[in-house]
């Protein structure tokens, strides 16, 4: 069956150009970049070139870019490494309630080490308030980590303002840009970003490959000690093919960014509008204005997410959900709860994230299928039965009555 892949926030299909760029580094140019003979030096040159190309994408210096095994390692390294290196200056860290677990669980680990963490709430759109942020800064605050764009609901934060508020108070500013790198314009100088995490597989590059940008002068302890790779900051024989593939993916993304952004935005808004128009008891999650161009996230009432995903999968549609059942945890997505969704409707959420080659047909087919799926699941839902019998018990209807935007 034809698969319609609308889960590009989860991972992406690697581009053939990226594979082509990587291929020589497996069985031909397989040298260790630390070696002195040509096979090693060529690998070393390829790594250096990739580093400066990636640095260029965000306005950084090559020596400020360090390769890692992915977004999670970058987040862990930035936050644990900075906190542990700067504990003498203070033990307070600020982050938000909607961060990825790679940030949240890292902060939780630091709390066990004696750090204190403020988890800023967000508004109904998922936005951190700059005022709240300023108010949370204490004299012993050393680090703030606020994600560039949310992986579930696509909300883009006011990074430049937050960073500047952090700097006014002498606080170092990290951003998890895993969802934004290669998709949104980023410039670490203009925006005042001190550390930035990115991951290659979110931009049609290889899995298991990430980077951490660290502004010159920002001190970190190593997460991975050992050899002298990455100027002694992150040990391990370089994943040369992965590094080369990451750089290639980023170059392509950078070159096509504006065009892709524009066409995705149109498709995204088409999808959002169709759902609001055609599917009752639905609510758009996340800001519509300050939102990744490829993110569509809805809650549907009276149904639970996993069943929806499985039925859509049976029609060849690959999407994801903030439902409890898909994550192995009893609670629904912490992001959906943080934007104020009651558990009941957080369970019935759906994320569709468009890719660079998603077509209008794909989106329309997905929405048609979604309508059929929801009708089927609602027909077997005891909650929908009750609602139909009594006309009561709809949370979304209440929201609508209260004037919450983008509900149907």
């Amino acid at each position, binding site marked *: 069956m034809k698969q319609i892949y609308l889960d590009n926030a989860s991972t992406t299909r690697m581009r053939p150009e990226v594979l082509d760029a990587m291929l020589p580094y497996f069985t031909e140019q397989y040298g260790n970049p630390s070696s002195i003979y040509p096979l090693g030096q060529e690998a070393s040159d390829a790594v250096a070139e990739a580093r400066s190309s990636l640095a260029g994408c965000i306005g950084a210096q090559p020596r400020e870019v360090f390769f890692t095994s992915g977004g999670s390692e970058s987040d862990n390294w930035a936050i644990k490494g900075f906190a542990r290196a700067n504990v003498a200056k203070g033990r307070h860290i600020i982050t938000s309630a909607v961060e990825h677990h790679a940030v949240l669980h890292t902060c939780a680990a630091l709390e066990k080490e004696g750090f204190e963490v403020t988890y800023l709430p967000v508004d109904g759109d998922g936005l951190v308030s700059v005022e709240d942020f300023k108010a949370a800064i204490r004299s012993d605050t050393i680090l703030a980590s606020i994600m560039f764009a949310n992986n579930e609901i696509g909300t883009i934060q006011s990074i430049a303002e937050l960073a500047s508020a952090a700097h006014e108070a002498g606080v170092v500013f990290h951003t998890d840009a895993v969802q934004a790198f290669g998709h949104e314009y980023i410039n670490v100088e203009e925006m005042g970003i001190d550390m930035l995490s990115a991951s290659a597989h979110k931009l049609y590059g290889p899995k298991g490959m990430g980077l951490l940008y660290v502004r010159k002068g920002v001190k970190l302890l190593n997460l991975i000690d050992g050899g002298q790779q990455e100027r002694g900051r992150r040990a391990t024989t370089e994943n040369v093919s992965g590094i080369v593939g990451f750089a290639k993916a980023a170059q392509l993304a950078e070159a096509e960014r504006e065009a892709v952004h524009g066409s995705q935005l149109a498709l995204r808004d088409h999808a959002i509008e169709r759902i609001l128009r055609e599917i009752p008891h639905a609510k758009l999650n996340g800001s519509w204005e300050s939102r990744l161009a490829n993110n569509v996230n809805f809650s549907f009432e009276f149904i639970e*997410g996993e069943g929806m995903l499985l039925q859509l999968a*049976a029609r060849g549609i690959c999407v994801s959900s903030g439902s409890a*059942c898909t994550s192995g945890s009893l609670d629904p997505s912490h992001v959906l709860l943080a934007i104020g969704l009651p558990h009941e409707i957080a369970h019935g959420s759906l994320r569709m994230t468009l890719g660079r080659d998603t077509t209008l047909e794909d989106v329309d087919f997905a929405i048609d299928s979604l309508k059929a799926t929801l009708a089927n699941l609602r027909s077997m839902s005891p909650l*929908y*039965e009750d609602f139909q019998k009594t006309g009561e018990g709809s949370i979304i209807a209440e929201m609508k009555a209260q004037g919450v935007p983008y509900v149907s």
Partner: protein
Amino acid sequence: MAMNYSEAVMDHFTNPRNVGEIENASGCGTVGNAVCGDIMRVYLDIDDDGIIQDAKFKTFGCGAAIATSSMATVLVKGKTVQQALEVTNKAVMEALDGLPPVKVHCSLLAEEAIHAALWDYAEKNGIMIEGLEKPVSDISEHDHGHDIDDEDED
């Protein structure tokens, strides 16, 4: 969290048997709650000999919840009330060729829903069903086994 549902689960999820309502059912029970994410409602039509002539369900929940509801109704149909009590969560799971560890709680919910419907039937008819205790309507107080690492806790 990888799912790896058995074929039987996928079959009962995609083609659930006995979806619907029974008007003036002999017994009807609803368990679970929408906060934790699973709600099951079972309708039973029980004849004067105490034989379950028909069973229907509605479920708000994941694929496993729908499949276990479907299988539970299949298993109790044609059985006596007493036999229906033996349709335990283990029996439902076995009939479905197993469930992923994180989904075992769904089969518990199905057992509870059958029990709740039988309790309703017993109450309506002023009878006592041996071995049947009043089911908790909100089974979220039960241990769902959801976020427990399947074997070790190290």
